């Protein structure tokens, strides 16, 4: 799951090396914290948050088979 976000984020940004995903495990939810270069923040979030929303939707589909919720957070 972490790898998926990492992979997608790397493909979207100008500076792939600055992409970092941290996984914080909780009881029922896993929080993925995505960090990117400052200039790439807009690309990750997208117009009206569309890209971020799309990633969350996909994440939802992936985590549904694991019966666990995953939340994506984008860290500035």
């Amino acid at each position, binding site marked *: 799951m972490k790898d998926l976000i990492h992979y997608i984020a790397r493909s979207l940004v100008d500076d792939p090396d600055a992409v970092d995903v941290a996984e914080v495990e909780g009881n029922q939810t896993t929080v993925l914290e995505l960090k990117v270069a400052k200039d790439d923040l807009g690309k990750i979030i997208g117009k009206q948050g569309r*890209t971020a929303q799309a*990633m969350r939707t*996909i994440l939802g589909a992936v985590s549904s088979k694991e019966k666990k919720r995953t939340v994506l957070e984008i860290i500035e």
Partner: protein
Amino acid sequence: MSSIREYVGKNVEKALEAASAELGLPKEKIKHDVISFGSSGIFGLVGVKKAKIRVTLPKGHRLEGKGHEGERADAETAVSATSAAVQDILSSTFGDAGTTKTETRQEEAPEPPQAASQPAPTHAAQPMDETLTAYGHDILKTIVDYITEDAVIRVDQNDERTIYNVSGGNAAVLIGKRGQTLEAIQYLLEKIINKKNGGRVRVLVDVEGYLDTRKENLERLAVRLAEKAARVGKPMTIGQMNAHDRRIVHLHLKENTEVRTQSIGEGYYRKLMIFPKRRRRGRKYK
């Protein structure tokens, strides 16, 4: 000559039409006060009221078989007094209804259907070369593999866009609620490909013919609601659709002369409305 005549109709509009037909004046020119707006009652059975308007005939307007010089001056003063009074009462009673009505009307008219604002396929069209198609395939495969196992992707190219057809695996999860997941995958894929390419290519991701099924369903729904809208004369609303879905409905009803379509609202709450077309409309409520 100035005198008052009363007209009734199913609604104010109809009454105005009757008046305009009889007086030979365009509807906009008719000075009228609304006496009652009328109502279609409950199921059009109980409590049906006709709309009634009082038309003040303009000076010098001749109506066949009418008009005595002497009466006119009296009538005129009486009319202006009554019409002023009626206006007052009306604006206090029907004030709200009246204004909202006119507002919505004004809103409706100028904005063309949303479909027109979407990018025309011509300038977006840009054939993808093989390396790019393969790149897209790899990315899609990676994403899909996370969601479900054993999925196979077939790539098709038509003159407008590249179509990735996913089959096998758990189709339900890939599609998601109302095609949400599918849309998200397609959006991200398009974005990633365009990032690599620098240009603008269109991709389509389909899961086992889901898009066609959805299109058929939407078109059926559109036709049904359009018929209903035309029949009952009231706007119909379809909510909870993404841009692609709305586009299908807009395009499908474009040729329909009975209705016109428009999207209203923002983001998640954006709705598509189907309005019955009226042949002529008088939009002034004086």
